[in-house]
């Protein structure tokens, strides 16, 4: 079965908003290599509306020829939104209703991993619904002090299990978690 893997750039205080302003300067060759591994293992992006709109405004304008740009523009994009009527970016499809059911069905289809980038509200709802297989937090050594957080106050308790961790030379720590379901089970 295909795994749904969420990759999140987060600050030390859990903020995920506008990573282009604070995260990209920590990127180096090792992190690009880790990204390349993730891209090779995945053949679909699953995105919330906000993240989709930000990415659709940026990536099609980028010059092709680099693995990252070519991958993102050509890979299948699945966009979860109840308000969007159409998605114009190359190889994009809308998921408008029965989101848990459709994502469960996608996981049953043959294919590689399904990667979520950003899309905090979607990540929270899939975690609650038991449909998220892996949460990969790229924790950056900066306290931002404000901005939208990945986890909101009052979201309730979720137990996760650490699968692996990797420390990059720029001080970013990649923590891969698997939801553990009910307390410790």
């Amino acid at each position: 079965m295909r795994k749904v893997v969420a990759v999140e750039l987060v600050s030390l205080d859990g903020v995920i908003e506008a990573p282009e302003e604070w995260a990209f300067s920590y990127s180096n060759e090792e992190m690009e290599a880790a990204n390349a591994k993730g891209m090779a293992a995945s053949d679909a992006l699953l995105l919330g509306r906000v993240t989709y709109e930000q990415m659709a405004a940026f990536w099609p304008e980028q010059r092709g020829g680099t693995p990252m740009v070519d991958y993102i523009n050509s890979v299948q994009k699945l966009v979860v939104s109840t308000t969007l009527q159409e998605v114009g970016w190359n190889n994009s499809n809308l998921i408008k209703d029965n989101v848990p059911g459709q994502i469960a069905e996608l996981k049953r289809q043959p294919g590689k991993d399904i990667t979520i980038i950003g899309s905090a509200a979607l990540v929270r709802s899939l975690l609650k619904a038991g449909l998220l297989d892996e949460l990969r937090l790229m924790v950056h050594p900066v306290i931002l002090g404000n901005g939208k957080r990945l986890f909101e106050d009052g979201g309730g308790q979720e137990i996760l299990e650490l699968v692996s961790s990797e420390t990059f030379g720029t001080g970013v720590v990649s923590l891969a978690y698997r939801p553990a379901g009910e307390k410790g089970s």
Partner: protein
Amino acid sequence: MEVTRKLIVCNAMSLDGYYEGPGKNVMDLFDYRWEAYPTDETFDAYNAERLRAADTLLLGRTSYDGFREFWPSVADDPDARPLQREISRLNNAIEKCS
């Protein structure tokens, strides 16, 4: 250059950045660890190492009260693990500033 003592902050924290659970209960952070890793002493070993490397413990009022309530009796608790009894002895002996 003048060599000064280092001030090291050591906090237990949940993935979403909380250091206590509902009702200001810090034990929420540790319940899971005990359930899933009943024989794992890595966390205690790390804390004992930090205390052995320090000669002053700097605490805010709330943490000081919490420590004072929890740690003094652990040293003589036959049910506590040896490492926890050591942490208790270290906490009891170390100079505390609050």
